[in-house]
């Protein structure tokens, strides 16, 4: 735990917050949009656990425009 306290959180916090917002946008988009290419739960997992690239992949390949 001591190591965690030593990290300069002020530097890293924006990175984490932006990743979080990006994942949030994906989830909002998936829940508002009717259909996606491939199962929805898979895209939610990809967006949450693959940082940065996951949401990009969803918006480029997973999104279906009506």
């Amino acid at each position, binding site marked *: 735990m001591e190591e965690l306290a030593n990290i300069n959180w002020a*530097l*890293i916090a*924006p*990175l984490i917050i*932006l*990743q979080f*917002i*990006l994942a949030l*946008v*994906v989830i*909002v*988009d998936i829940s508002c949009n009717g259909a996606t290419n491939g199962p929805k739960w898979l895209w939610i997992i990809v967006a949450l656990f693959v940082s*940065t690239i996951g*949401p*990009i992949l969803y*918006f*480029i390949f997973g*999104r279906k*425009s*009506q």
Partner: protein
Amino acid sequence: MGQFNTFLLKEWRESWRSFKFIWIPIVFILLGITDPILNYFMEDILNAVGNMPEGFATMMPELHAIDLLAASTGQFQSIGLIVLIASYTGTFSKERQNGTATLLYVRPISFTAMFLSKWIVASSVAIVSAIAGYAGSMYYTVLLYGKVDPARFMAMLGTYCIWLLFVMAVTVAMSAAFKTPIATTITIVLILIGSVVDSIIGGFWTVTPYKLSTYGLRFVDESVTMSIFWSTFILTLSLIFVFVIVGIYFSKKRASTVKV
């Protein structure tokens, strides 16, 4: 003029509703701030996960603000451009495919207004993203490495925005001329493979649009040759003009290929 405003509004709304105005700038900010942070913590990262043998010592190069800006530009030039091209390459061709175009093409519309509105909205998303990304990169660079003259930074940013106008003109023109997969392939070959080729054998010439971002970076360390910069700048502007004309021509010509 009224038609142009309507098209502009349509494209604007579409970019908001598909969240392009939110996620592309966020991706650029992430790309921009990753490099300064990563380089700042490089020693810690190597110690923690590098699996280095006991007694291993490295010499870390002393990085200056310009190196970090160059690194961020490199990120924008690869991942950033792929994101921009992939999200706007369907702007004409997807509409023809999914039937939106039939609703438009039955009316007496001006293809010039249509093309320009699409290009302007795509470029404004690109420019907003670039400004956001460079602002993030600059914030961390100033915080961790050192200052950059604001006027020089602005000159670099402006140059990069002209390059993005060129990229979006190519993307939208190709989208007007071909189907989505072909348009994506051609744009990526023209822009990304072109940049790679230019960086490998580009030593033989000095004036190509691909070099514009490099020349922009040279504003920051004051090594830019103004005459070469201006000829590159004017060449890029005229290529933008050519691609806009080509795009308008093809958007008119391909209107008949729309699926009903």
